[in-house]
């Protein structure tokens, strides 16, 4: 059953109610909502949260890869991976680099642009260190002396 908007209150009472409540003046205070500010929606912070998460994951990955918490080390590692040093002309010369030859002190930091031939020289093979072994090759066995052999002497005695 549809309801009507008919008043159910005595008109005199209704008028009195309006008069009494109409006399009530609301205090003219500053609206509180004006200083409350608009609510910050979570989705507006999504790009910032994504950037923070991505940076965190990147830092953890870099730490795991380099073992160092220093971002400078991470940068060096990235540069090394992206721009690796030029390889030497012959891979054989690389194993000769270690200080197995008793070199005085190997340079702690080799310049990657240094010519590989300069590094190969101090680690040369032992054959090149002294000329004596080369002479040994020329006469590995005792050659017959130029002097007369005992076998030939009987014929000479004759």
């Amino acid at each position, binding site marked *: 059953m549809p309801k009507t*908007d*008919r008043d*159910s*209150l*005595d008109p005199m009472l209704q008028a009195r109610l309006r008069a009494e409540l109409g006399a009530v003046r609301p205090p003219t205070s500053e609206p509180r909502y004006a200083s409350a500010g608009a609510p910050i929606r979570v989705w507006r912070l999504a790009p910032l949260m994504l950037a923070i998460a991505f940076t965190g994951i990147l830092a953890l990955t870099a730490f795991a890869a380099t073992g160092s918490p220093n971002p400078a080390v991470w940068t060096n590692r990235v540069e090394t991976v992206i721009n690796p040093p030029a390889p030497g002309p012959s891979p054989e010369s690389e194993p000769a680099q270690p200080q197995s030859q008793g070199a005085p002190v190997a340079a702690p930091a080799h310049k990657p642009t240094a010519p590989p031939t300069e590094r190969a020289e101090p680690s040369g093979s032992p054959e090149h260190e002294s000329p004596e072994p080369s002479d040994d090759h020329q006469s590995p066995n005792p050659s017959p002396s130029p002097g007369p052999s005992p076998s030939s002497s009987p014929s000479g005695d004759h």
Partner: protein
Amino acid sequence: MADDYRPGSREDFDRLYQVAYPRVYRTLTVLLSDPAAAEDCAQDAFVQAFRAWSRWRPSAPAEAWVHRIAVNRAISYRRSAKLRSVGEILRRVGRPAPSPDPADHVMRSDLLDALRAIPPKLAAAIVLRHVHGYNNREIAAALGVSERTVGSRLRQAGERLRRALEPSFSLEASSAFQAESPETYAKD
């Protein structure tokens, strides 16, 4: 009430505040006898409404929507005030009663006291209808009930108010809501 407000618009909410705040405040002065509490609850209601302003749907009148927030806020305040009053009584045992606040004089009358004596949702229905001129649909939106329930509440509020004010005033019988069944307020 012409609702040409746009949800989320700050300018429209400012306009709504200018129009609705005095009415909301007056409604709350009936529900709450303390003017400071009425102002506090009204301001809180507008803060809450402002935060939800972007979710407001024009299908419900904006002023009724704010009224709904404010009435619920006032009912919560009354509940907590009852608990506080018990503590105040216990603390004041044996002490002289405090002097009345002069501001309360404006808020005091037998009519307003009678309205405050009935359940707040009944009193709110009376004020919305007979002071602010809301129709049943707007009262239903303001109180969060059906229009059928609004009619029932108006009828019961009139009867209670008449009994409280007798023999000062006479209320005419509410023939408009004769088919209504009595409402149980414990459900609300």
